[in-house]
């Protein structure tokens, strides 16, 4: 069998998107196809809508929030929800609604940036490990073992002690402790993808490894990673609550949702709104990411339909 000239093959226009999935229908660009399938998934669209609303809330927080995050009225602590204070007031009379609104900025930032850090570390280490195998694989997997074995809360407290308590520190802590799962998923994808013929062929054709990873394996491994990532963002936002619980969360007056939930946990009976509203915000966020993640998976992987 004669293969085409490698140079020509490799030069195949990368912008060429393969056609539609079924042999029955007309072909159309892949991305449009994913979007079309995504759009038809009602839950996914609900998730996307919620996400868009959250992002808009974060962007336009100053316009939406009736009060500032530190603005307080003396003597009006722990008031139940009313027209003046839609979500009630907190321990020192600040407007919970405004803080939840501004909290969207903090929590989304923490969620997205920390996940991004995890992703980068996980992608690099996972692909090194999965593609090259051998010593680098053993080494990297041992390291992830070590980090998986040390309870992450212990690590978080240790890192927090060194870095202090700030939003950035939280992002770094969660980023540094969150890459393990991603690295493993990437590695697993690589192990299976590596054996696919087109990768084997590319190797046979003498393409550089970096090129093979970047252009042939990564795009295919992306799917599980994207899905994992959308779920990870939600759990990162939640982890921030756990960090607050063990005392290394973001500090006042930062209106992070997790910290607010933590502050409200003793208020279950006497001021439940302090717990409920920031908790609901986390719930909505996590839920939207879960829905989006599910929708993405279905859209990227139509055989699941």
């Amino acid at each position, binding site marked *: *069998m*004669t*293969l*085409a000239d490698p140079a020509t*093959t*490799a030069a*195949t*226009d*990368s912008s*060429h998107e*393969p*056609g*539609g*999935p*079924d*042999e*029955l*229908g*007309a*072909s159309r660009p*892949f991305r449009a*196809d994913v979007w*079309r*399938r995504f759009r*038809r998934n009602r839950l996914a669209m609900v998730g996307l809508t919620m996400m868009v609303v959250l992002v808009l809330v974060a962007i336009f927080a100053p316009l939406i929030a009736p009060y500032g995050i530190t603005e307080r009225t003396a003597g009006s602590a722990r008031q139940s929800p009313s027209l003046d204070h839609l979500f009630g007031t907190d321990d020192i009379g600040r407007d919970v609604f405004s803080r939840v609104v501004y909290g969207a900025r903090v929590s989304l930032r923490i969620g997205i940036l920390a996940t991004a850090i995890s992703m980068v570390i996980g992608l690099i280490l996972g692909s090194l490990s999965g593609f090259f195998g051998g010593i680098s694989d053993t080494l990297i997997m041992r390291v992830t073992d070590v980090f998986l074995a040390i309870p992450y809360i212990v690590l978080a407290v240790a890192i927090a002690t060194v870095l202090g308590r700030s939003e950035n520190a939280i992002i770094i802590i969660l980023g540094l402790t969150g890459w393990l799962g991603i690295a493993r998923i990437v590695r697993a994808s690589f192990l*299976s*993808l590596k*054996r*696919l*013929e*087109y*990768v084997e*062929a*590319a190797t046979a054709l003498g393409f550089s490894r970096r090129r093979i990873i970047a*252009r*042939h394996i990564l*795009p*295919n491994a992306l*799917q599980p990673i994207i899905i994992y990532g959308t779920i990870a963002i939600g759990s990162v936002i939640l982890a921030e609550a756990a960090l607050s619980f063990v005392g290394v969360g973001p500090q006042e007056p930062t209106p992070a949702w997790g910290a607010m939930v933590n502050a409200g946990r003793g208020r279950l009976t006497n001021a439940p709104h302090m717990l409920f509203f920031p908790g609901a915000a986390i719930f909505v966020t996590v839920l939207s990411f879960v829905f989006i993640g599910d929708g993405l998976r279905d859209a*990227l*992987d*139509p*055989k699941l339909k």
Partner: protein
Amino acid sequence: MVDAAVTSSSSPFTRKDVLLSMRGMRAGFTTDDGFVRAVDGVSFDVQRGEVLAIVGESGSGKSVTAMSILGLQPTLEIAEGEILWKGTDLLTMSEDDRRAVRGKEIAMIFQDPLTALNPVHTVGRQIGEMARIHEGLDKKQARERAVEMLDLVGIPEPRKRADMYPHEFSGGMRQRAMIAMAITCKPDLLIADEPTTALDVTVQAQVLEVLVDIKDEIDSAIILITHDLGVVAGLANRVLVMYAGRSIEVGTTDEIFYETRHPYTLGLLASLPRLDDAGDEALVPIVGSPPSLIRKPSGCAFHPRCRFARVPGNCQTDDPALRLVAGDAHMAACHYAEELSGVTVESLRSMIDFEAEAARIDDTLPAEPLEPEDESEYEAALRDVAIAEAAAHPGVMDRGVRDRGGRDGSEWPAQPEDPRDGEVAP
């Protein structure tokens, strides 16, 4: 449409001892783009002991037709028609009754034994399970039966093999095991869906041989679904050719091969390489791609690809009915079936200007729609290579790039260990 009328009670197919009778079957799938008419008015009978081959390209509806018999596609919507099994309509049967038929009376042999066998159970267990379900054997008896069956399909050391897992079998052995499983309860009808496609060429013959032997041994009828006319020639009594969800030609094997009355069948035959050929004789591909089953071409669905089509003319406007064209049971759905009398593969080949043809192929091939979903750029390139190869050796084209996930149309990604995709052998 008119097909249904052809297999009315007066049809020559409804003779003695009919096991299965499919009548006016219309079925398909609802997709985002519309309703896919995968089976569009198909009728046929299967008699006890005969081998009926259903032939067609991928997407012609042949697999769906077969699957509809056992009801294995939950998403398949049946618009009309009936499937009579020994006189009872399978489609109106209770689920329990139908389950009693499955495996015991009608058994299925799937195309890719690697994915069709459960990777986590031993081969022996999977074979024995058939007997446990339908004959109530206990674990030990079932195992004995499995060993017996493995022996029957010619697997050496069956006792040892029974305890092994599918991945420990070679491709041919796996398909034998699959066959062993299917015949465990001595079914009256075996449906073999592309039983040799996933196998190496060298193994294909062996497996077919097993199939033939088994048929004689247990005296069951076989519906053989294949795109490979070579397989048909040695095995089938009768052949049903399908195109775009329709049956377009039916007849005995000899009739189909030597008195072809449909341009499509002729095209299929012309694209078939012959081992006895000197090798310098060029093969003739069917150009273009199968039509969309959602929006079929007007008139004869085949006319855009037909060398003999009269365009403009009734080929473009009228859908030809399946009608008796020769002998007592040779039927074809072509307005000009009679004119094909006398046209042979050889004469067809001599008609063709290969250089012009090559130019035409270049124009049409990029439309090849069979790539998988998330195909990478590099795989697209590899596919192009395969297509180029296929253009040089058209006989394998259909196979080389045919349904790479083709069970239900678009499954992907293939298992990494799936050997099918790469087979672009000359």
